[in-house]
Structures are given as C-alpha cells and as structure tokens.
C-alpha cells in the first residue's frame, strides 16, 4: 500500500516539475541564448554587408598587397619605403611593437625589483623613497607619463647644434639620443663564435657544479666563471684577430649630428614611460611576493646557520618567485598592450600603422581583425612561456 501511495505522488510530481527540472530549464535557456546570439550575428553581418555595399567598399584582405604610399619614421629591421606594400608596413609595426615591449619589459623588471625590495628595506629613508615612487606612478595614467616624457622633457631639449654631450661620445638633443654604433671588421665573426661557446660553456659549468655539490657538498663560483667565459671568450677572440672592431662616432655638424646610431624621441619616451609606469606595479608584486614567504622560513634558515645573503638567495627568492610569477606575467602583457599608446605620439607601432591604413583604405574590419590576432597571439605566446617558467619554479611535491 505504502509503495502504491508513493508512486503516483512521485509520478505526478515528476510531471509537474518538468518546468522546474534544472536540466530542462538549462537546456531551454542555452538554446534560447544560442538562437538570440545567432540572430544578433546574422543581423550584424547583414547590416555590415549593406553598409559596405553602400560605401562601395570591397571586403577581404586583398588590399594588403597594394602600395602603402606613406612613410614610417622608424624601421630598424626592414627596408621600408612608401613604395612598399601595406603588409610590409604592418610587419614594420609588429616588429616595432615587439621591440619596445621587449626592452620595456626588461627595464621595468629591473626597476620594479629594485624598488620592490627597497620598500622592504630596514632603512627608513630608502623605504619612503620607494613608497613615494610607487604611489606616484601607480596613480597616474600611462598616457600622461608618455606625454610627460615626450612633450615635457624630450621636446624641450636643446636643438642639434647645442646637443648635450654625455660620456662615451653620446649626445642628447630634441631629435633623440645619439650613440656610437659598432662597425665589425674582417674576422669579427670569431667574437660571435666566442660568445656562443662562452654561453654553452657557462651552462655546462653550471650543470657540472650542481652535480658536484649534490655529491660532495662543495660549492663552486658559478656566477664568476660564467661571467669570465661569456665576456672573456669574445674578447680573447677579438684579441687574436687583432681587434677588428671599430666604432662609428656621431660627429657634431653645423646643423645635425652625423654618423653613429640614433634612437628617436618617440621610441625613447614610449620606452621610458612604459618602463617607469609598469615598474611601479611590478614593485608591488615583488613586495607582496617576498612578504608572502612565511617568517618561519627565514628563521629556520638562520637557525641552520645561513647568513642574510644566502638566506635571501637560496630560501626567500625561490619561494617568492612562485607567488610573483603569475601576476608578473599579466603585467608583462599589460606593458605590451600599453605599447599601443604609441599612436598618441606617433611612434609607428602596430596600432599606429594600422590606424593609418584604416584611414587610407577604410578597411576597418580587416585592420581590427589583424590587431586582434596579433595581440591575442602575443598574449598566448607570453602566457605559454611564462607558464613553462612557472612550472619550472613551482613547488615539486614528493
């Protein structure tokens, strides 16, 4: 009887609850979403096609093979002129983006680590100076920092004729930074070979020293040996060949500097601004990372008899890196994305070049698509590399 009583109740409730069944509801909701999104996309595509037809614009990437007709002020890697194609102009832009992002990341990391460690210093003065730096740069827009360097500092430097003479035959004026460029003579290739051999040798020495320490406990001055190998071997190679390296010095002419190499003010201000701005964020990440390592770790290390230096190097930093690396990755990506602010001061990065093409040809969809692909690609590549690095330093549990 009891079971007969229950079954109909159960059956009727199952019928009534079809509308309340989470699975059914979820399915209906998802199907509805797909239909709405598909309808929206159809509507957008339809509108776009109509609009393009009305504006007499062809779609597709065929226009990229056309002659660009505009000049690019800075193209250090590719030979580019206004007769080159649009696609080549885009390549110049991509390479410029990567260049400024790469050097910016290195500089920002160095400044950021110094400031971040400085904020944890026992020295009150150093701590306060670093805090002031971080609080200033974290709270103003990066674009303003770029303008500050470009309009406020670099463009009010003296003209070429009154260039500021700096050490090592370098000059600074409102057209940028001029420095001697190396000229490699006959036989300079041996120095390159020396460099490669030095790096490989340093890596081998590191492996050998690690093995030896595991077995005997004895340490080996790896850092100094590596430095000697990497710097010494190329120098030795140059000596053997009778120093075939000379420098092309910039010479102050009547109107401009001749010779040497030049870094334009656009690149300089973008690079300086991105480095200083991102460094303030990296400093906070580094500080949080070092703080995140438990106090017991350094106490245990002191108890084992390690002094302050080895404690930091062998105990604190390896553990702090695990906390630091994930947010550090997103700062690197932020820096790369912020390099698109170049468009505001006319440094020809990917967005600036793309913007010019967009204005000339009107192919906005294609240009925006290229931007998205390149930036997403850079993001994915950086993430993959940093994840690999993160996996290397991650905690290996037994």
């Amino acid at each position, binding site marked *: 009887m009891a079971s007969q009583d229950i079954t109909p109740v159960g059956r009727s409730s199952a019928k009534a609850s079809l509308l309340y069944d989470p699975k059914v509801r979820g399915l209906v909701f998802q199907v509805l979403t797909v239909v709405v999104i598909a309808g929206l996309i159809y509507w957008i595509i339809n509108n776009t096609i109509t609009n393009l037809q009305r504006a007499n614009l062809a779609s597709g990437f065929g226009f990229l093979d056309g002659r660009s007709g505009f000049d690019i002020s800075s193209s250090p890697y590719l030979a580019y002129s206004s007769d080159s194609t649009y696609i080549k102009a885009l390549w110049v832009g991509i390479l410029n983006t990567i260049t400024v992002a790469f050097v910016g990341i290195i500089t920002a990391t160095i400044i950021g680590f110094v400031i971040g460690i400085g904020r944890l210093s026992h020295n009150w003065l150093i701590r306060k100076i670093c805090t002031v730096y971080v609080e200033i740069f974290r709270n103003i827009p990066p674009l*303003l920092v770029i303008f500050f360097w470009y309009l406020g500092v670099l463009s009010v430097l003296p003209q070429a004729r009154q260039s500021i003479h700096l050490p090592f035959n370098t000059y600074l004026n409102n057209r940028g930074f001029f420095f001697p460029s190396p000229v490699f003579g006959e036989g300079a290739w041996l120095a390159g070979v020396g460099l490669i051999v030095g790096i490989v040798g340093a890596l081998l020495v590191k492996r050998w020293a690690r093995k030896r320490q595991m077995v005997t406990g004895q340490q080996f001055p790896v850092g100094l040996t590596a430095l000697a190998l990497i710097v010494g071997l190329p120098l030795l190679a140059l000596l053997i060949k009778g120093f075939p390296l000379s420098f092309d010095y910039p010479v102050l002419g009547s109107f401009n500097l001749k010779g040497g190499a030049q870094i334009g003010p656009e690149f300089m201000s973008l690079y300086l601004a991105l480095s200083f701005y991102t460094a303030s964020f990296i400093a906070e990440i580094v500080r949080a990372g070092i703080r995140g390592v438990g106090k017991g770790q350094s106490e245990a290390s002191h108890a084992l008899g390690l002094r302050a230096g080895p404690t930091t190097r062998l105990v604190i930093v390896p553990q702090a890196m695990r906390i630091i690396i994930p947010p550090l990755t997103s700062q690197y990506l932020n820096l790369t994305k912020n390099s698109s602010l170049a468009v505001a001061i006319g440094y020809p990065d990917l967005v600036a070049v793309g913007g010019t093409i967009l204005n000339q040809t009107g192919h906005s969809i294609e240009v925006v698509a290229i931007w998205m692909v390149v930036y997403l690609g850079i993001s994915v590549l950086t993430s993959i590399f940093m994840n690999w690095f993160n996996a290397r330093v991650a905690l290996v549990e037994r």
Partner: protein
Amino acid sequence: MDNNLSYVRTEMLQEQTPPLGERGIIRWMRINLFATPMDTALTVFALLVIAWFLPGIINWLFVNAVWSGPDRSVCSTVAQGGIQPEGWSGACWAYVNANFSQFMYGPYPIDQHWRVNIVAILFVLLLVPLLIPKAPYKVANAIVFFFIFPIVAFFLLVGGWFGLPYVETANWGGLLVTLTLSFVGISVSLPLGIALALGRRSKMPVIKMLCVIFIETIRGIPLITVLFMASYMLPLFLPPGVSFDKYLRALIGVALFASAYMAEVVRGGLQAIPKGQYEGADSLGLSYWQKTGLIILPQALKLVIPGIVNTFIGLFKDTSLVTVISMFDLLGTVKQHFADANWASPQTPISGLIFAGFVFWIFCFGMSRYSIFMEKRLDKGHKR
C-alpha cells in the same frame, strides 16, 4: 633600638635614563638609518640624491613659478620673446590658471556652467554620506545615487528639456568628460562583470563558453583597439542611417573593456569561497539566485574589494585614452591647449601635464586609500 637590619634594600634607586644612544631620535636614527655600514652608505647616498634634486624641483614648482599673467610672455625668457631673465626656468601655473575653466568643462557653453556645477554638487552631496560608514539611510542613499541621480544629471547636462538649451556631447570636455565616463563606466562594469563571472562559472556549457570567449578576447587586446572598434566598426554593424553619439560609443568601449577585467576579479572571489558555503546554501533549499545573492556574492565581493577598486582606478586612468579617438577629456584638453599660440612656451607642456597628473593622482590615490579603509573595516577576522 634600630632594628632596621634588612638584607634587602627597601628603598629603590632612582631609575636612570637609558644611555643617549638608546632613546629618542638617536635610537630611531640608529635603528632606521645607520644600522649597518651598508645602511649608512645607502642613507648617505639617498640624502645626496635628495639634496641634488629636491631644491631644484621645489624651486621650479614654487619659487620660480609664475602664478598669474596675461599670456605666454610671463613664462618665457627674453630670448624666447618673454620678460623672464635668461636661464630662467619655472612652472607656468599662469597657463593652468588662465585655462582652468577649459580644463574643467571643455567647450561647454560658459553661461551654462551652472548646470555642471549643480551636478557636481549633487554628486558630492550624495557620494560623501554613502562613503561614510556611520551615515544613516544607506539604502535610500544608494538608490538615489545610482538610479535617480544619473537621470537628473543626464537631463541637466544634456538639456533640451524644461527650457534648458541642448548641449551636444561634442561640446563636453575636460574633467567633466573624465568624471562622467568613469562614473557610468564604473556603474556599468561592476554588475556586468559580476554577471560575466557568474556566467563563466555556470554549469551550462554554452553560457560558459560565450563568457570565456568574451572575457579572454577583451583581456587580450589593448583598450585602444576596443575604442577604434567602437568608433569605426560599430557604425558598420548598425542598420544604415542609425548613428550613435561618439561619446556613447567611447562609453560602450570603456565599460565593456572594464567589465572583462572586473569579471576576472570577481571570479577570483567566487573561487575563494569554500565549497561548504555552496553546499550549506543548497541544503537550506535556497534557489540558485538566493544562494548567489544572499550567501556567495556578499562574501566573494568582500574578499575582492581591493581588486575591484584597482579595476575602478584602472578604468579611471583608461578614460584618458579617449583622446586617441579625438575626444577631449582632462588630459586631451590640457594637451590641446599646448598648441594655443597665446601660451606656447617651453614651460607650458610640462606645467600642464603636472597639473593634469596631479588631478588624476588625487582621484586615484583617494580611491585606493578608501579601499584600504573599507578592507580593514569589513575584515571580520574570517581570514586564516
């Protein structure tokens, strides 16, 4: 008879003050500035750097600065066509002073500035009690601030009704644009970000996938591309003849961009809530929305207040990028006026930029300090 023969001293000696090196400012300096030889070297180095730069900076900012004047001549040397002696260098606050109303309102009609002022006063009057924890009527205040105030502000700023002359958004500028963009961006991005974060953690695969695609795409590209998209591609997507206000397009771009970042911050909070909280809510028979609204979100949002405010600060700073699509916010207006022939001098750009930077800094620094204050207040000691 004197039976005071105690072995133990009954009268204590007067306590001596600690030696000179162990008290007061000397002790503080010894610990904080000269603890080790390395510390001493660092202190001396830092003092040298400060002594090298600070007098020059203070001189430039205050002593040599020009505070008022009719035109560029007060801010340039004789050789540059001005009245200052050769070699003079100082901040040109006169330029900021003369263009102050431009920096605040942009090309908004001067006789209509009172409308902006009323909105600003209302904004402050409503915001301040909302921020002070002890002030009463929080719910009513919040409703007025987030629902009624925007409508009033919209009618006041745009006009065209009740006899107010219509002011198109192309005539807005300066701090007005920066603040309105940020306010609307912040009020849109937080709910949108929460919705995206919930969607990303949803059990429905289609919803989850859509949210992931949106969030990761937006986070992977720079804001400038989003703004270019909003200003060049949005018109293509709409039926012919329908056109959008440029200001509104920038607003959509900024809000969508910030909401993707907000979603990731909120997701962090959602993931930090222990599973027991979800299960506890389920066992009480709460529905999804009750569970989310009453149990999960209040805890999750509290955990990520610093991240949320950081996203707000980021959005506030990012509004400066609208200059790239030729809209004039505070930074854009300041920069636009560098070209003013009346005021062009070598000192003008840097003075204007320092002023703009100072304004941005005050707002961002205020927000970050308030978030630290709130974090401490809301900390109920649950954190382990």
